[in-house]
């Protein structure tokens, strides 16, 4: 499998080419360079996946872990070194497929979406950089390589969010995204350092004896690593950067902030899963509760947002919460026992990447058509944009969990795992699944049904997008329809053994009923031209509504901490102290020396006889001293 190196090399090369020579290329050439390299990567990823899964299992019933490439990049000590390499196991191969598929779709889509934009070449260069970093992250052979690429995806996200660098909101959003995730990465880094020190390795499989000695240290390390994952995956309270990240171009939101980068945290937990489940079950359950709370919080905020990308952003946060819950509720590595969640989480990661990318790309078409993100500017678009409408509906049904769309299967597994963990968790997650259906259909009706903004549409008639944009939609919609029937458990499961997904009809039935009820409610409230119920509720619970609309003031809270506490209470006093205390002390020393000189200066008055007096008295004193002692 030596060719896997090309999966990393191609995007890196296309990034270098576009970054160095992009300005000399025409838009079309730049786009083709980026897209072709990505197409090649996708083909290679599929080939890798095919040959990997068809090569069959080893004698112990597990898929082999292959390391076709590995070299020592930065040596520290004989046992600790950062390696760069490629590791293939079921989840990394799965992620290769997910990342390359979505990325290719976004590359194609951007041809239409970004057409004529200034900086088109730069955009493709950054997309290549991101794809390179994300692929490097998923195939990492050790935790430090993961961190290296983790930072790289962070910076490419920063660059892409700030793509429209003349917009103040985009600048602020990119800065916020980077700093918040950087803050979380601090936890990740310290976690890695602890892990490295006590395990004496950065690989994912420390020696038994080290693990036995570790004791309380390992849960700390894993907990801190999860902080990093929580930052990237926008877990409460580190989620604040993700909604703002929607300032970037919409295809970027689809790729980075919906399908791939934001699930890096989930992937991290999955990667370290054997350690979590055996040595830090409490941390794992804490992950579950954080995920559940985040899912609930984000779902409730998503119900009242009016910017369609914001709704999708909160929906992403909520769905990642689901994945975290799925991983967190595992109590065992056996999928027939307590380890179902692992498979469910990875399955949901896969299906969610597809339908959420589809939703974002659809939203991109809509924004492209009406030149606004606000739902008020939309309504009744189903007549103008049939393809977008149908594919969007497919994605909404999938995320709402309606069979036979893919979201149903993965979400059902998650709910089953939750009920297996505790009924409370199961019911909470079922309720959140219902909320998901509700806000997604609120969005759907708001965009495609409801009252049409005729005045606006008369001025500028919305139109269906070009083929470059609709093709990815259709492709992803097909995947969304079919992906649920993939026997996912055969490929990925917590202990690596094959597992056949079988629906628990009790759980599935409940969730379908809840989802349908929520959709019906949304239909009743939002499908008509006027929305008396929604307005009435908003007026009745105006405080709650406003709080939810302002995302329960989390941004304000963060702003308070950063601006007030860190900036005003630490940095400003420190700078003041530096200028006025330390520097003044140095100036005082200089002044003191000067003053001493000044005060001795009159002695040197230029009168020769005065000097001789000093001279003579010196002699007398010295003589006296010599004589007396």
């Amino acid at each position: 499998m030596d060719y896997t190196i090309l999966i990393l090399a191609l995007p890196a090369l296309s990034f270098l080419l576009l970054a160095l020579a992009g300005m000399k290329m025409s838009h079309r050439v730049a786009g083709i360079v980026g897209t072709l390299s990505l197409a090649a990567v996708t083909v290679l990823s599929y080939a890798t996946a095919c040959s990997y899964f068809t090569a069959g299992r080893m004698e112990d019933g597990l898929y082999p872990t292959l390391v076709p490439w590995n070299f020592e990049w930065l040596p520290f000590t004989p046992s600790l070194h950062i390696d760069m390499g490629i590791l293939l196991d079921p989840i990394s191969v799965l992620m290769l497929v997910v990342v390359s598929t979505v990325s290719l779709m976004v590359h194609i889509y951007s041809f239409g979406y970004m057409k004529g934009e200034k900086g088109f070449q730069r955009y493709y260069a950054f997309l290549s950089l991101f794809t390179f970093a994300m692929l490097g992250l998923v195939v990492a052979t050790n935790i430090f390589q993961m961190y290296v690429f983790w930072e790289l995806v962070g910076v490419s996200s920063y660059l892409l969010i700030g793509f429209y660098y003349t917009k103040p909101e985009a600048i602020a959003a990119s800065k916020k995204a980077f700093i918040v995730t950087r803050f979380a990465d601090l936890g990740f880094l310290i976690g890695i350092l602890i892990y490295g020190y006590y395990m004496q390795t950065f690989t994912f499989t420390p020696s038994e004896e080290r693990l036995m000695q570790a004791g309380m240290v390992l849960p700390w390390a894993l907990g801190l690593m999860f902080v990093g994952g929580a930052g990237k995956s926008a877990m409460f309270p580190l989620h604040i950067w993700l909604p703002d990240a929607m300032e970037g171009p919409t295809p970027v939101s689809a790729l980075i902030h919906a399908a791939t980068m934001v699930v890096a945290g989930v992937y991290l937990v999955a990667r370290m899963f054997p350690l979590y489940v055996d040595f830090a079950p409490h941390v794992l359950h804490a992950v579950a509760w954080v995920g559940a709370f985040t899912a609930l919080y984000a779902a409730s905020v998503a119900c009242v947002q009016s910017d369609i990308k914001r709704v999708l952003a909160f929906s992403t946060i909520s769905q990642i919460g689901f994945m975290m819950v799925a991983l967190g509720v595992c109590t065992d590595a056996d999928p027939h026992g307590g380890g179902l969640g692992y498979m469910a989480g990875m399955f949901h990661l896969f299906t969610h990447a597809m339908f959420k990318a589809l939703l974002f790309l659809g939203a991109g078409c809509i924004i492209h058509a009406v030149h606004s993100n606000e739902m008020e500017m939309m309504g009744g678009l189903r007549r103008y944009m049939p393809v977008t409408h149908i594919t969007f509906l497919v994605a909404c049904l999938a995320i709402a969990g309606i069979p036979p769309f893919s979201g149903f299967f993965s979400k059902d597994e998650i709910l089953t795992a939750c009920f297996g963990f505790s009924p409370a968790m199961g019911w909470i997650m079922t309720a959140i699944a219902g909320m998901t259906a509700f806000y997604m259909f609120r969005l759907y009706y708001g965009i495609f049904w409801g009252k049409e903004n005729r005045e606006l549409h008369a001025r500028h008639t919305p139109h269906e997008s070009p083929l470059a944009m609709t093709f990815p939609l259709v492709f992803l919609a097909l995947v969304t329809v079919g992906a649920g029937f993939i026997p996912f458990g055969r490929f990925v499961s917590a202990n690596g053994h094959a597992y056949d997904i079988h629906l628990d009809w009790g759980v599935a039935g409940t969730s379908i009923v809840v989802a349908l009820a929520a959709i019906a409610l949304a239909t009743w409230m939002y499908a008509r031209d006027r929305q008396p119920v929604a307005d009435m509720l908003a007026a009745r619970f105006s405080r709650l509504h406003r709080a939810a609309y302002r995302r329960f003031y989390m941004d304000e809270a963060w702003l308070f901490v950063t601006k007030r506490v860190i900036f005003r209470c630490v940095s400003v006093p420190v700078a003041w102290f530096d200028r006025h205390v330390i520097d003044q002390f140095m100036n005082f020393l200089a002044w003191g020396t000067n003053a001493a000189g000044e005060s001795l200066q009159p002695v040197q008055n230029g009168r020769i006889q005065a000097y001789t007096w000093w001279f003579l008295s010196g002699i007398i004193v010295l003589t006296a001293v010599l004589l007396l002692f």
Partner: protein
Amino acid sequence: MEIEIHVIHYLVISTVMMFCGIYGFFTRKNLLALLISVELMLNAVNVNFAVFNRYLFPDRLEGHFFSLFGIAVAAAETAVAIAIIINVYRNVKQVLTDDITDLKG
């Protein structure tokens, strides 16, 4: 009666010369007077050299040499000093020490 001239007599003379010189150096304001005082002090030292050599180490000559040195130095010094004083006078029209303080910095 014959007074035996002993070392003490020479020393008294040289001491008187020395302190005259010191007194003059401290009290007179005229540069020429200062120069004269310095000459007095130098010669006092020369006398001491010669005397100590004669009485303490009669078989050696270093002290005499040093007196000769002193005389030569005094001559050179006088030449230089007078040249300086003349130049100072030309430039500042003054030979009084209290008024020549330009070099104090």
